[in-house]
């Protein structure tokens, strides 16, 4: 039985990674799961300089999900290269995907150039974080901007470039095509959907930032639909995510056209979920006599 997948020339042992921002750089969850068993680890977004993030409260639970406005707090690329990359390299079976964020094209370029000589396997460019006012989302909501930033990344990156798409758009396929036209090696989707929660007792917003990104099982049907639409439109590999809680959810994404899947919010609910999803996909394959996971990719047309 084959669980290996090839994402833009990088071979993962299985099709499961973790969603950026929910898993740090792996260390904390490494106390609960064997990081060597996860196909790839996607890190929290990292910028050229340290970012302090947003004021608290930064998160609020919502029905079947949560909204967050962490504001891309991160220690900056220097400390990240010194500390987080060497830590992740200890897990030889697991691929390393560094998620990159920025407020301007120059910010993104600086991080990508800095990572060129580091031993990381792939770069994931977050052009879709709704929590950063200066840049972020603007890139992800205009196809011309998506294509332009993708081109800039491709010019500088030594590793394959995954463009992470925002769902906060009218036509997701258009954004996907723009990234593909810009030379993206792969796509990941979806990032969070912009949401809001009001605390009726205090008559305030639940988050200090007023709005936050909705994630968790509440967004899964939207995410599956978007993965399907993008899979119909492009020919580059897709990493699907949004509300995956178990192997069945992961298989929905794969059948809709994702070559790999990413697990985010579910880690908060069940720190061992990544290993359980991998095991669950394997038993589904056994029960259904499927020899190769790749045979399931996009099997629902």
């Amino acid at each position, binding site marked *: 039985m084959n669980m290996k997948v090839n994402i833009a020339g990088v071979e993962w042992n299985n099709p499961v990674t973790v969603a950026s921002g929910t898993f*740090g750089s792996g260390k904390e969850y490494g*106390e609960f799961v064997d990081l060597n068993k996860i196909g790839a680890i996607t890190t929290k977004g990292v910028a050229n300089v340290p970012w302090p993030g947003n004021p*608290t409260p930064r*998160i609020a639970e919502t029905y*079947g999900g*949560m909204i967050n406005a962490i504001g891309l707090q991160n*220690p900056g690329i220097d400390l990240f290269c010194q500390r987080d990359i060497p830590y992740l390299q200890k897990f030889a079976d697991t691929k390393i995907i560094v998620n990159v964020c920025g407020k301007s094209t120059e910010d993104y370029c600086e991080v990508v150039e800095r990572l060129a000589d580091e031993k990381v396997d792939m770069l994931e460019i977050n052009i879709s974080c709704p929590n950063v006012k200066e840049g972020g989302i603007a890139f992800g909501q205009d196809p011309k901007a998506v294509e332009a930033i993708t081109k800039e990344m491709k010019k500088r990156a030594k590793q394959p470039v995954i463009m992470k798409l925002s769902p906060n758009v009218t036509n997701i396929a258009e954004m996907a095509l723009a990234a593909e036209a810009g030379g993206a090696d792969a796509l990941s989707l979806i990032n969070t959907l912009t949401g809001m929660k009001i605390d009726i007792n205090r008559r305030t917003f639940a988050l200090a930032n007023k709005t936050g990104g909705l994630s968790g099982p509440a967004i899964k049907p939207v995410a599956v639909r978007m993965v399907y639409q993008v899979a119909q439109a492009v020919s580059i590999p897709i990493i699907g995510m949004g509300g995956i809680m178990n192997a069945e959810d992961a298989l929905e994404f794969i059948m809709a056209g994702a070559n790999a899947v990413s697990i985010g919010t579910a*880690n*908060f609910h069940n720190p061992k979920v990544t290993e359980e999803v991998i095991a669950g996909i394997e038993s589904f394959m056994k029960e259904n006599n499927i020899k190769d996971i790749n045979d399931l990719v996009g099997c629902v047309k």
Partner: protein
Amino acid sequence: MSDKVIKDTIITSSVKMSEGIYSMWLKEEEIAKAAKPGQFVSLYCKEGSQLLPRPISICEIDKKQGLVRLVYRVAGKGTLEFSNMQAGDSIKIMGPLGNGFTLEGKKVILIGGGIGIPPMLELAKSLDANVQVVLGYRDGDLFLKEEFEPYGTVYVSTEDGSVGTKGNVIDAINENNLEADMIFSCGPTPMLKGVKAYAMKNGIKAQISLEEKMACGIGACLACVCKSKEKDSHTNVNNKRICKDGPVFYVEEIDL
């Protein structure tokens, strides 16, 4: 490896202590063995729409029998679910989490306000010092007060003046002329601000336990930060993770 575990555990007792306040003992030997006063656990809801774990402080630890006690107020859907559980039911829990209090001081004041009172109990039991306990309540519903009495002198403040000093915990300290070389405190932020000001003014060292909304509870997601005076070595900015670097901080470390 760490001493944290995540497990389904059995509730050995669950009782209502007073209006909206519940006490629960859980059988979890590994957590009981590793836990320190001031640490907390994450409780997971059975209701699937509530994804995030609920952080609850450890109120008492029985290392011999491998038991951990939690005392909590019904504040919403999750705690309501827990309050309906009974002895024999199972509940998923992760812990022990956070740093806990550093046991120090010869003459100490433990200051608990409202639902910040429970973690002070295990602390009172653990300290080898002259222990004075100041408990702040809203009214005459003095949950847990008697349980502190074997471990120190207990003073009470109530907002409505029905018992002890009318006012807040600082009023009670002043009224009773309490002195100390160390203060420990847990409670609502306005109270902690008062404690910080009091400790700084009187040159007394103080440890306070903070609260913030949490998602992972283990330091991965950066939801639960507080502002720190110095640049934190992990985050590389001026904030610290309450779930991992806290919940207990020295007052001078953080901005409230």
